[in-house]
């Protein structure tokens, strides 16, 4: 590896300030020295990047556990209400089906014709049938942060619904005529990524077919815009745009992960109808796509029982939500619910890279009754049936059209269970499982097929299952999404399974790249990776790493703080003499025992622990350093705070379900009941007095209602280290307003002359809203009240060039 011969050294002759030649040897030494240091620096960056990634993945798994907690809680509710207790109203709230039945009636319900569009609306005015130019205009409009008027939204969705109803469960595509097909993975409401893909690859057209592999919504803030764009192109090019359903195309999931909230915020008047229509549309989305009869594209994956012939036959629209199967199970009321503690103990050991570590991950727990979405939904359906029965008798209930089964069901109830209904039921259960498997499964490295308990639905499937499946169906490759990958894509199972993820910066700015893939007639995948960096223009790679790391650590510190009680007991068990000190090794293993996050705690400890003496850590001091409670929650007792914090997403989801008029408020009574039920479920005491205190701590409107957002705010912890760094109060408020999708919070590094993209968090730049047409809309300035104020003021709305990106084109493997 020399440095090149005489020629180069001549060229590289250096001179000092007196004009004397510096010997090449010294120059060389200097160069090597700098290079050594650089490489060390790069290695340290890499370590940080990696553990930051691990933290995010672990947090995601913890979050998925939350989802299971939600199901458990709902299950508990179903099991434990007794009519006519007051809680029953709350629960029937949660599971109530709305009125309306046949398609014709639905069309009337979704009618848009009497929605007027005010003259001052400057967004796109769609005329149907749509054409290519209108679709392109729609993209442009969204780029400019305009919002489509609800009239056109409903119209577009209705047209989409009509089209989807005639599509088969399995899209069949061919790469004839040397057409390359472009395939995209999860987008999760991240419009910048979709725009970036269109920019790099061109928009869908006759020459440019696209397959989108589900998860268009939730988490990101522009889910509805993404849907509208995809549906528009679907309508214009029905033979060249293919949409698969993802597990997030599900209205109950949307309640928890933000899409419902987004729509209701953007469309205050018609949001509910839009959501209802979307509910139907989601259920009508095709399940899989097959290219050239050789490549399967599906959102989640497969299981050992996946059977495409069966998939082709199912009535897919009956499977509206992962939480609502279409039929009941035969009444053998096995108690599938364990109590919360035992279930929560069943936290799976997670591999940092998202596949199972151990050959038998469930070890001794195999005997334990496994809760899955299926089990739960069966139980839900069971009690729904009881509900129907009661209501039917009361004459209130009218059946939904898509559940003719329910009619059968309730008559079955009244005349005792019939033998054929069980057979009927088994078929639908089988279909139900098939669909869950398609939308929820994840690959694992070991052979076999086991229930996916991290997600609560679908399976973990191994390479042998892939092999078997491909052989049976004469396929050569499975392309799926569903899991975030640092480089946007990843092969596994001997390159027979490809995971493709198109939402860059998913966890945090800089956390990962997105990717899309092109397939030509040779079916060799050609990847393009990218990262939408409109928020980080001007930041170098190391600064990026630091920012991402900072967020990850903050999240991690919160987790540590809310598990304080458990951690404290773990520490005290070790520190029997009560010295208040433990050594680092014990600290690390105790944390892992409590949190089960499978993180490199020793590597992380310099970031989490400010000081140790003789390798021992003062854990009381450490807790004090971690985080502060907000003043409004000061009076709440620590364990209560931790519990509420841990279950906050469950609470929030329930609140939103209960808030049936979507006002953002729930009654005090509902609030109280929810908390009481949660505490009973958790076997925790929560007295009325405590509940009252909780209510008082958040500003109520003095009319007996509670603002959900305000209440949830009380449980955001303040990051103490930032406080102590003396950041301005404004910055502090901004940080506390951070929601799931990262806000463009800037570091104090001076920006380059080009201004970063303005990101008005909610309000569109134009003056259109869908509220009462007679009023003039508010000028934008007022509407930006929520977004980080300084940003909106500093930056002119620079638009299309903002999508500065890093892209690496990977040649076909």
């Amino acid at each position, binding site marked *: *590896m*020399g*440095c*090149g011969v005489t020629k*180069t050294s001549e060229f*590289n002759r*250096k*001179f*000092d*300030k*007196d004009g*004397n*030649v*510096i*010997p*090449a*040897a*010294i*120059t*060389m*030494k*200097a*160069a*090597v*020295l*700098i*290079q*050594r*240091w*650089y*490489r*060390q*620096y*790069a*290695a*340290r*960056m*890499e*370590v*940080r990047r*990696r*553990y930051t990634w*691990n933290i995010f993945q672990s947090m995601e798994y913890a979050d998925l556990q939350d989802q299971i907690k939600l199901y458990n809680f709902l299950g508990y509710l179903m099991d434990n209400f007794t009519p006519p207790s007051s809680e029953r109203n709350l629960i029937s709230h949660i599971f109530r089906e709305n009125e309306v039945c046949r398609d014709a009636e639905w069309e009337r319900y979704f009618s848009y014709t009497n929605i007027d569009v005010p003259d001052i609306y400057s967004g796109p005015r769609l005329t149907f049938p749509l054409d290519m130019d209108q679709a392109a205009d729609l993209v442009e409009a969204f780029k400019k942060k305009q919002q489509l008027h609800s009239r056109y939204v409903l119209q577009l969705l209705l047209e989409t619904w009509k089209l989807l109803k005639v599509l088969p469960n399995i899209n069949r595509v061919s790469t004839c005529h040397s057409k390359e097909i472009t395939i995209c993975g999860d987008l999760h409401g991240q419009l910048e990524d979709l725009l970036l893909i269109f920019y790099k690859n061109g928009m869908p057209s006759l020459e440019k077919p696209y397959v989108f592999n589900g998860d268009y919504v939730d988490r990101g803030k522009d889910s509805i815009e993404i849907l509208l764009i995809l549906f528009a192109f679907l309508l214009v090019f029905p033979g060249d745009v293919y949409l698969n359903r993802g597990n997030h195309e599900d209205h109950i999931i949307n309640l928890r992960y933000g899409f419902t909230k987004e729509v209701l915020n953007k469309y205050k008047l018609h949001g509910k109808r839009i959501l209802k229509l979307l509910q139907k549309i989601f259920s009508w989305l095709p399940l899989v796509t097959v290219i050239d009869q050789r490549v399967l594209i599906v959102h989640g994956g497969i299981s050992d029982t996946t059977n495409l012939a069966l998939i082709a036959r199912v009535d897919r629209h009956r499977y509206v939500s992962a939480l609502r199967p279409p039929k009941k199970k035969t009444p053998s009321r096995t108690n599938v619910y364990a109590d919360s503690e035992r279930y929560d103990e069943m936290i799976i050991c997670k*591999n940092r*890279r998202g*596949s199972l*570590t151990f050959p038998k991950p469930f070890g001794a727990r195999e005997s334990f009754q496994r809760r899955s979405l299926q089990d739960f939904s069966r139980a839900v359906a069971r009690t729904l049936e009881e509900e129907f029965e009661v209501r039917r008798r009361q004459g209130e209930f009218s059946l939904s059209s898509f559940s003719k089964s329910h009619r059968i069901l309730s008559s079955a109830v009244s005349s005792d269970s019939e033998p054929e209904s069980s057979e009927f039921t088994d078929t639908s259960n089988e279909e139900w499982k098939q669909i869950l498997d398609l939308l929820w499964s994840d690959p694992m*490295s*070991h052979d076999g097929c086991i229930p996916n308990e991290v997600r609560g639905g679908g399976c973990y499937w191994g390479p042998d299952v892939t092999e078997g499946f491909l052989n049976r169906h004469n396929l050569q490759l499975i392309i799926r999404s569903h899991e975030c990958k640092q480089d946007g894509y990843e092969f*596994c199972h001997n390159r027979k399974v490809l995971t493709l993820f198109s939402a860059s910066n998913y966890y945090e700015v800089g956390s990962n790249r997105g990717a899309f893939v092109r397939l030509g007639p040779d079916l060799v995948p050609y990847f393009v990776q990218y990262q939408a960096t409109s928020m980080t223009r001007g930041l*170098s*790679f*190391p600064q990026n790493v630091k920012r991402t790391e900072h967020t990850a650590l903050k999240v991690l510190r919160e987790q540590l703080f809310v598990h304080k009680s458990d951690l404290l007991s773990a520490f005290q068990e070790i520190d029997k003499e009560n010295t208040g000190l433990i050594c680092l*090794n014990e600290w*690390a293993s105790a944390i892992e025992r409590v949190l089960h996050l499978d993180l*490199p*705690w*020793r*590597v992380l400890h310099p970031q989490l622990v400010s000081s140790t003496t003789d*390798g021992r850590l003062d854990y009381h001091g450490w807790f004090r350093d971690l985080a502060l409670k907000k003043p409004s929650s000061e009076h709440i007792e620590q364990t209560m705070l931790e519990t509420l914090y841990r279950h906050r997403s469950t609470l929030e989801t329930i609140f939103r379900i209960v808030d049936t008029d979507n006002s953002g408020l729930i009654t005090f009574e509902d609030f109280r009941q929810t908390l009481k039920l949660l505490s009973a479920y958790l076997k925790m005491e929560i007295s009325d007095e405590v509940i009252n205190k909780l209510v008082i701590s958040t500003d109520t409107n003095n009319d007996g209602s509670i603002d959900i957002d305000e209440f949830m705010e009380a449980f955001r912890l303040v990051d103490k280290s930032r406080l102590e760094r003396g950041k301005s109060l404004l910055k502090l408020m901004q940080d506390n307003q951070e929601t799931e999708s990262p806000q463009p919070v800037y570091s104090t590094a001076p920006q380059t002359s080009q201004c970063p993209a303005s990101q008005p968090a909610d309000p569109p730049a134009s003056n259109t809203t869908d509220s009462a047409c007679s009023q003039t809309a508010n000028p934008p300035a007022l509407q930006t009240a929520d977004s980080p104020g300084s940003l909106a003021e500093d930056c002119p709305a620079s638009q299309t060039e903002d999508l500065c990106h890093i892209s690496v084109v990977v040649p076909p493997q």
Partner: protein
Amino acid sequence: MAPKKKEEPKPVAAPKPPEPEPPKEPEFNPAEVKIEFTAEQIEDFKDAFQLFDRTPTNEMKITYAQCGDLIRALGQNPTNAEVMHVLGKPKAEEMQVKMLDFEQFLPLHQHICKAKDRGTFEDFVEGLRVFDKEGNGTVMGAELRHVLATLGEKMKEDEVEQLMAGQEDANGCINYEAFVKHIMAG
């Protein structure tokens, strides 16, 4: 003849000849290395080792190519040549393929840790000072880039870019003490 400068540049200590490859050094024998790390240190190394483990089944193995990165991540800064030396001078195609486990890694790391000259902040500054033509505490960014990419254990263009990003002022100069602090602080 050594040029006269304001300060004598401290020569980098003896075991670092200009050529990256020390021709006379005997082959490295891991068995001969005595491990002197404490148990705590070994735990630390294990944690970091796991971070680099990319095997799908978590076998606690890393590729040869990652070995240097891991050693550096743990605080050492060997040259590439030194890394290759402790790896037993593997061929280029072996780097991505051959793996080592934690037990095999320890002696390599120990050997590097024992190397006498590790280079301090001052050494680093001195290295940069070589390029300080005016003796005013700055070096030309362009010159530094050129050197790093063409001399010694050459860096790739994007590596140079990453290193230098945001360090040059309007005149293309770098204040190297600040630069060094930036690198060392990570």
